């Protein structure tokens, strides 16, 4: 099967062609949703902050928001804000314009109220749709794929089936020249030595350890003990006993090829291959970071099941065990429980998953896309003022 995608001005390839209506602050979510009701072919991302933050978090916010619009699955962006927020519509428009894609901006204060913003916004969104709807896919190789990897609602099977199969799929993708981003620094705690031992160079190994230790120090700042939350109640009832057991199962996702880089939250990778992005383990900010980094497809492994999705990228849900797959089948795309039953080997399931990744990149919709699931959260590491 020949993979095809949309070549963007910055050279990256998208596997969806979305017009994104993007709030610059939580106050604009309502009016953005109203615009999208008027223009249902456009998509939005829900933004829960943009104000009341220290500069450190404000900078991460602006960086992430900009890079989300830069994701190559996004063909064009309409930025919608209020006018008093830290990252104003005009500033966001200027930042996003460096990707070379069509971008417009509107602020509620300047537009003259709610209804006026909806009118003008709908008209701009419609314009952008007309501009991009004729775009063609071109033949591309799997080397253009950046796969985001996430695990959530884990059970002990996650580390035995779904994450192992995903690791095999990642090996196939990396061997084809593609990239994969593992995040969730929290879930590397207790497994960082093993991960660092698989780094492409001692320097990358050191950066993996530094990233994990920095996170542990941050937790200590609060006088908190990570092991009281990891594993969580759901994980323990399902059978996970220790933090290390959970983390060692989680890092299987990145596969066996040497890890080439460690990147900061929401950064766009400079290298190809498997890499670690510093991010929290909570699903929404973790996936948001990878999508800002340019992941066009996300594989989300889960033991207990979750409907998680995001509007601008297809999220493929892989269940770790068959009973959970049957219970949550309307949210899940692939069952890796076949490994537990001896019906498939890890290699076979991994190969099946890799094929699915390519099909989804080619246009097949995931359960999460069909449900219209849409979570987004930009990582905040300091205070809310």
């Amino acid at each position, binding site marked *: 099967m020949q993979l095809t995608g949309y070549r963007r001005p910055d050279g990256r390839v998208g596997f969806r062609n979305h017009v994104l209506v993007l709030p610059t602050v939580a106050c604009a979510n309502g009016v953005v949703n109203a615009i999208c009701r008027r223009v249902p072919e456009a998509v939005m991302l829900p933004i829960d902050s943009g104000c009341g933050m220290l500069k450190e978090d404000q900078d991460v916010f602006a960086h992430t928001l900009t890079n989300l619009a830069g994701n190559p699955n996004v063909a064009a962006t309409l930025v919608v804000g209020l006018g008093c927020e830290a990252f104003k519509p005009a500033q966001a428009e200027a930042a996003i314009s460096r990707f070379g894609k069509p971008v417009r901006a509107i602020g509620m204060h300047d537009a003259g109220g709610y209804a006026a913003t909806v009118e003008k916004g709908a008209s701009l969104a419609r314009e952008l749709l007309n501009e991009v709807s004729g775009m063609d896919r071109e033949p591309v190789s799997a080397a253009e794929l950046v796969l985001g990897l996430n695990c959530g609602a884990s059970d002990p*099977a996650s580390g035995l089936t779904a994450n192992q199969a995903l690791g095999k799929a990642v090996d196939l993708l990396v061997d084809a020249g593609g990239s994969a981003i593992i995040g969730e620094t929290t879930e590397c705690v207790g497994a960082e030595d093993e991960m660092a031992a698989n780094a492409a160079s001692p320097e990358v190994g050191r950066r993996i350890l530094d990233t994990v230790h920095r996170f542990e120090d941050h937790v200590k700042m609060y006088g908190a003990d990570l092991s009281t939350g990891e594993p969580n109640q759901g994980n323990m009832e399902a059978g996970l006993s220790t933090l290390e057991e959970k983390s060692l199962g989680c890092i299987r996702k990145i596969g066996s090829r040497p890890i080439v880089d460690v990147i900061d939250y929401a950064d766009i990778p400079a290298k190809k291959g498997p890499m670690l992005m510093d991010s929290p383990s909570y699903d929404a900010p973790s996936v948001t970071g990878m999508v800002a980094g340019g992941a066009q497809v996300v594989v989300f492994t889960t033991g207990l099941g979750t409907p998680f999705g995001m509007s601008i990228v297809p999220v493929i849900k892989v269940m770790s065990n068959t009973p959970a797959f049957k219970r949550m089948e309307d949210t899940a795309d692939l069952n890796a429980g076949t490994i537990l039953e001896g019906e498939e080997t890890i290699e076979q399931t991994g190969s099946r998953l890799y094929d699915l990744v390519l099909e989804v990149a080619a246009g097949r919709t995931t359960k999460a896309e069909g449900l219209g699931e849409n979570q987004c959260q930009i990582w905040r590491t300091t205070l809310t003022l």
Partner: protein
Amino acid sequence: MAENAAIIVIRETDNVGTATRDVVTGESVSAQVGNQTLSLAAASDIKFLHKIALKDIAAGERIVKYGAVIGEATQPIHVGEHVHVHNIRSLWGKT
């Protein structure tokens, strides 16, 4: 696959396996460990995806799963027993 092949073991060095279905006390179960088939009797009920001891484990001995140390035993564990938070603890944060 054999009816009683109810345990999955990832590496030959593992001393715990994972139940691939609910197992009841006294049930005879088997696990593939590399080329060998290990047979044991469940000494307690082992719920789906919970761990079972593949051999006797001494108090303080390391618990090995997927070829890596996942904790240590806090009390002696007999072959076939349920292995979980009541008899093992994390080594994270302890040197």
